[in-house]
């Protein structure tokens, strides 16, 4: 190996290692409950808002295309993807999945992307719209063991339910 190449690959290796380490610690060291909104303009108004201080930051609904009721819709959660989600009324109404639409007619997900009859084909790994890559996977907020199970801001009894 030439000296030039040693320097080149050594520099690349160090740069990549540093970047990966920075990225890893930058994410894993994030507070468990990050601020609800990073944009101060979207900051929740105090009091009255059942979403304040909880669901919009680490909100399990944030990536949940199946939230039937968006607790943050008219609330201070402008940055919450649920707010503008076409799924807010019906996850299948105007699916964000477009060409992949797991909710489309003839699709095993038609009844419910989270239903028992779900077949994984439209949620293939190459499908960048799936929940890495399967909207019906266990990690999906819609799955049985989902984060909404433990704390479902969309469910009855949730502090957001009355919002």
């Amino acid at each position, binding site marked *: 190996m030439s000296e030039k190449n040693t320097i080149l690959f050594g520099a690349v290796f160090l740069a990549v290692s540093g970047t990966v380490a920075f990225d*890893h610690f930058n994410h894993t060291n994030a507070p468990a409950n990050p601020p609800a909104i990073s944009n101060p303009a979207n900051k929740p108004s105090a009091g009255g808002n059942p979403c304040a201080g909880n669901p919009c930051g680490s909100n399990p609904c944030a990536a949940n295309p199946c939230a039937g009721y968006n607790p943050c819709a008219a609330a201070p959660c402008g940055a919450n993807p649920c707010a503008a989600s076409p799924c807010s009324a019906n996850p299948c109404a105007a699916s964000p999945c477009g060409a992949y639409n797991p909710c*489309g007619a003839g699709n095993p997900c038609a009844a419910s992307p989270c239903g028992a009859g779900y077949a994984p084909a439209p949620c293939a790994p*190459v499908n960048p719209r799936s929940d890495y890559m399967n909207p019906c996977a266990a990690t999906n907020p819609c799955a049985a063991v989902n984060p909404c199970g433990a704390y479902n801001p969309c469910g009855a009894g949730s502090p957001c339910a009355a919002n």
Partner: protein
Amino acid sequence: MSETTLNVRASGFSFDKGPAAVTAILFVIVAVLIAQAVDIHQAVLYSLGGLLGIALYHASFGFTGGWRRFSVEKRGRAMRAQLLMIGVAAAAFIPLLAIGAPLGSPIVGAVAPVGVSVLVGAFMFGLGMQLGGGCGSGTLFTVGGGSARMLLTLAFFIIGAVIGTAHLPMWLELPSLPAMSLGTEFGIWGGLGVTFAGLALIALITVWVEKRAHGSIEAAPAAPRAGFARLLHGPWPMVGTGVLLAGLNVATLLTAGHPWSITFGFGLWGAKIAQGIGIPVETWEFWNWAGPAKALSNSVLADNTSVMNFGIVIGAALAASLAGKFAPKVKVPFASLLAAAIGGILMGYGARLAFGCNIGAFFSGIASGSVHGWLWFVAAFAGSWIGIALRPVFGMDGFKKS
């Protein structure tokens, strides 16, 4: 023999002792760090990547060279090894995917829609891989082998992948058929039958073309060494390596829950770098879709594709050291570097549009029974043909040897 070269007399080969020791130690350290930083699952995927890197390097299992050799020299041995590899993987994938959760955790295949984006993206990818000098897997294992030129290809591959994520939503508005899986459409046996028939047909075409041009089929070259020496030093047999790669892809499917893929990681790396320099990729539609959003907000070490890619590079570096070929070339002409950059951009952008590269769409796609994998192959092969014709513009071999 140099000071840093160890001669293994009993086996009859020598290797770069220094780089081999460094890469072997590095490989283990990275595995331990990933296990500590994330979990053992990611470390296993990284190790699978390492084995893939070693196998790819030792067999020089590149799609680019194999396709070019068939197109230019009418020799189809490498292509037939690729087809066999896909067939072996399909024999496991299609039944496993039909089961759904063979080991308890759900698995999904590389099944994607069949549309204009695949057609255009795969064509761009095929063209780009001939200019870039490597496909998705080829770029990684040659970078691991110490190629400075392929480092440039990889850098532009990443840039192209990020640009692709910006434009993909627009491309998906164009006409497309839904994702179709042969296993779902025709059942397990029907899906396997159609897949095997398609692969066999292409293999027969390569045999016919080769016999017509040369009168006979090329035999595998005799190995310069055997046994343990060959295992460590290479070269590994192409057919055997193809079967091994198929097995490793099955292991990936069962471990990760999805088949082997490469280029999603490139897009993710690029997006994270772009974020770092102030480009708000998190506002782009693609990075707001559930999967990409999750990957972008997590550590890169939590991304399956990324840790496997890291494993491939370091595994290939280890293999190159053992083969005594680490960084064989330093000086690269400017025109060749330009081709590497253009090829990298085309591959990155094309892979994003086509739902994967030669691994994620061609290998894993066809093995999963996805119709999009077949469209990918046809379009990429056409692009590859044009790419070969364009190579002389950049001072490289084309259809006529320069």
